């Protein structure tokens, strides 16, 4: 978002506000501070490394690479501490009553990196318009114009364009289109942000077109579908062409949820998921899920041509709570297995499956107190971990709370990156300063001990974050008491 557009937006805002019947303005200010030690390249004389061949070991166990003819063996180690301190300021403005059914909404975000050297991702984009649109809303239809979101089975995309939704009861059909923005980035495909990190950035912007619809299935369910295509601006190619179908149905006490995301270009399923969840009593609930997942890549990258394979996964979870709700426990687990990759050598196998399991519980000895604990382990391809956390929280009323937690983490295997153990302690708290002003903050200490000689940043660090959110005004037609959650 360039400065000119920001100025135009800010100039238009007072005009809209002056003409509106009502205005709601909310803001979120958040600040994080993290000190960490990024990896830096280092080297030692060959004589200090033991062993032979390209990979040798230093006295402290660090693995180094020694190339024939080079008098130095090279490796990476943690450098000096760097402070990453991203600051975000979100501002949302909703104005309505500009005419019957006419309203406008804007959500802008300012970013700054207050730390030294280490810039938190995305903070170089100092000002961003998350959304900004005008709307004409009547019972049978709704039209929007501006920067807006499309949210559906294919995820969340925003674009600069227009949308028209037709409604009949709970059924709806929406057509939308406009200049496509990169998902999760709020930046045009040919924007500077993507180019700054991508060595082969796309050379043409894209246009998004799509249709989405949803309809109830009786009183017990609903189904929806979305088709969405992103076309290169020169119409020479497609960046993506996808279809999603979703359904949810309640029958025999069981909720059936179904998702399907289909890549029309590659004729491949990106994700298919069927989930069944059923409460067997007020105390006991169980769910099972099967899913198939294959990553999707926009066609302005080469990644899709690398034939990523899918994995299938079976998941299950059970939860129990006592009659008063003061004690609850749950257990979950999953097992996944990958399709044959047709790559690599049989003599050099790679793990082709993974599993995870976890158990957790909560206990409320009194209304104001919560004691909780969780243990999870995830043994998989690429990375594995074992993770435990336990803590307590005191919430004397709904306007303030404070908590503390201890945690432990073991990275078991991670392609030899980051193997080690970590212990942490964290305190957190929040308070409602006024009806519509809330603050929350936390601070944590972590101690990291690496092992295995693999390169990894020293994650021993201090962390702090604070968040302040406030609202002035209210939603149209809703009295001020509404709004106890964002």
């Amino acid at each position, binding site marked *: 978002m360039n400065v000119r557009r920001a100025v135009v937006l800010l100039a238009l805002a007072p005009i809209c506000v002056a003409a509106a019947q009502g205005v709601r303005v909310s803001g979120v200010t958040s600040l994080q501070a993290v000190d960490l030690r990024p990896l830096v390249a280092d080297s030692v004389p060959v004589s200090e490394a033991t062993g032979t061949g390209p990979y040798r070991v230093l006295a402290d166990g660090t693995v180094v690479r020694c190339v024939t003819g080079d008098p130095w063996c090279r490796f990476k180690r943690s450098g000096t501490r760097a402070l990453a301190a991203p600051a975000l300021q979100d501002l949302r403005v909703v104005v309505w009553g500009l005419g019957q059914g006419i309203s406008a909404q804007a959500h802008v975000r300012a970013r700054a990196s207050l730390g030294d050297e280490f810039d938190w991702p995305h903070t170089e984009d100092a000002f961003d318009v998350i959304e900004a649109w005008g709307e004409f809303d009547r019972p049978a239809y709704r039209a929007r114009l501006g920067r807006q979101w499309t949210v559906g089975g294919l995820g969340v995309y925003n674009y600069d364009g227009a949308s028209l939704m037709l409604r009949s009861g709970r059924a709806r059909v929406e057509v939308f289109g406009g200049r496509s923005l990169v998902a*999760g980035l709020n930046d045009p495909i040919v924007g500077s942000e993507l180019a700054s990190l991508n060595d082969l950035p796309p050379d043409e912007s894209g246009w998004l077109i799509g249709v989405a619809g949803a309809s109830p299935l009786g009183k017990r369910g609903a189904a929806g579908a979305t088709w969405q295509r992103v076309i290169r601006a020169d119409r020479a190619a497609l960046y993506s062409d996808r279809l999603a179908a979703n359904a949810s149905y309640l029958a025999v006490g069981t909720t059936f949820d179904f998702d399907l995301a289909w890549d029309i*270009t590659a004729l491949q399923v990106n994700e298919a998921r069927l989930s069944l969840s059923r409460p067997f009593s007020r105390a006991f609930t169980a769910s099972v899920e099967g899913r198939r997942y294959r*990553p999707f890549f926009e066609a302005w990258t080469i990644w899709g041509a690398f034939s990523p394979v899918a994995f299938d996964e079976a998941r299950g979870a059970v939860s129990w709570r006592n009659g008063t*709700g003061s004690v609850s426990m749950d257990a979950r687990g999953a097992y996944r297995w990958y399709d044959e990759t047709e790559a690599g050598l049989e003599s050099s196998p790679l793990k082709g499956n*993974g599993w995870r399991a976890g158990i957790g519980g909560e206990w409320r000895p009194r209304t104001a107190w919560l004691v*909780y604990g969780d243990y999870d382990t995830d043994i998989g391809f*690429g990375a594995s971990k074992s993770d435990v956390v336990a803590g307590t929280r005191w919430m004397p009323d709904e306007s303030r*709370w404070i908590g503390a937690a201890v945690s432990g983490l073991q990275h078991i295997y991670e392609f030899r990156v980051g193997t080690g153990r970590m212990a942490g302690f964290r305190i957190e708290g929040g308070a409602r300063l006024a009806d519509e002003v809330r603050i929350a903050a936390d601070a944590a200490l972590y101690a990291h001990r690496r092992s295995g000689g693999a390169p990894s940043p020293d994650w021993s660090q201090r962390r702090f974050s604070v968040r302040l959110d406030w609202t002035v005004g209210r939603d149209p*037609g809703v009295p001020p008491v509404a709004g106890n959650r964002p």
Partner: protein
Amino acid sequence: MRVAVILLLAWIGTAGAQDNRATGFPHNRHARLFPLCENCHAGIPSGNAATSMPDEGLCRACHNGTDVRAVDWRSPTRVQGLLRFSHDAHARETDSTGRACATCHGTPGAQRMTIRRAEPATCLTCHTHRASAHLAEDNRCSTCHVPLTAATGLTSERIAALPKPASHQAVAFASAHAPLTQLASASCATCHARESCARCHVNASTQPLIAALAPDARVAALVAGRSATYPVPADHQAEGFDRSHGGVARASTARCAACHARASCTTCHVGSGASDVLVRMPVAGPGGAQGVRLRLQPIRARAEVPALAARADTAPKPVAVHNANVRTTHGAQASASALTCEGCHSRQFCADCHTTEQPRRFHGANFAQRHSADAWGRESSCASCHNAELFCRSCHRQSGLASQGRLNVAFHDAQPLWLLQHGRAARQGLESCTTCHAQRDCLTCHSTLGWGVSPHGPGFRAERQASRNATQCLMCHLKVPRSP
């Protein structure tokens, strides 16, 4: 013998005491003095209130302290009780049928002037054509009773001790007791005042039948501090009610408002989707019924930062709309509109998570260190909120983890035979690869201009891919390839 005399005297004394308790006057001791009831209660048959009770002077004629011990008896002040009863009308009827006062006030089998209060059962000996029993549900209380608010002679204790009809004890009664007619409402008014209803009903002031009841300070004192009772109606317990209650609420908001204040709805509905119903719901005022008070049950409290309510509304009844793993599985329900998200959530609720930086905390503490296993296993879809090209690689690069063009320093190459494994690893976890590696890292080998090693799998549809996006092919190939 001595014991028998004592017991006899005790029985006599007890009988007299019973008469005293019932009427405040030992009628049976005076039976010989007053052969006719009208000697003392002349005004009752005639309807003359002034002479319906004897004057104190009549007592003092004998109880003067000389002839007989003095007594301090005062003619009772007539107060209005619950009975809607006309002695003179009944006296005329009695006269015409030959019945005497003892029909209602006499004690069967006892000597004359063993007086008792009239029993409801006695009334029903004549009025049975309208009721199966005194407290029966089909009774019309107002036939014999005045409204409680008119019974000014009743004390709070008497009101609290009023008998409770059996029908009121039923579980379903509390959720389906609304009187259907004004006539039935009059029966309610026999024992209840406006405060009786206002204790639970949030919309008491706007309900005609409740508003028709007069207020009563005694009832107000009795219900003050007593918590409201809100049984769960049968339809609320039906499967899927949480999804379908919107239609019910729109069609009959007044029914909801009987037990729910607006705060009940806004516990969940903070978006604009239900605003048309919300504006029709009553707001609980101070001192009035608060309605069913709900507290949103954290999906998994231990994993989330508690949401601070915008106002104090302690809620004894937890409600859970979503299941425990909704944070990662809500796509189907949201996309299919099975749950109308905007009915409960404002739009910013979605954007808080799905706009990269996440002002709302989605991940647990220290996720930056813990995320690798989740990311490799795709426990949740990173790409639904993050742009891997920018967000992940930016951080990995600054941390020194990402590849920066030199492949000979760290990480995978410290493992024997990584080169032979990496193809399989890439196909299994390509998304994770892209968080450290740029495209040119791979093109060094996997391109026509590089070593010419094909990265395509056996199922790769080159022609189809080229027909959709030939420019993608040209990033590696000198010309658009065709399938063999």
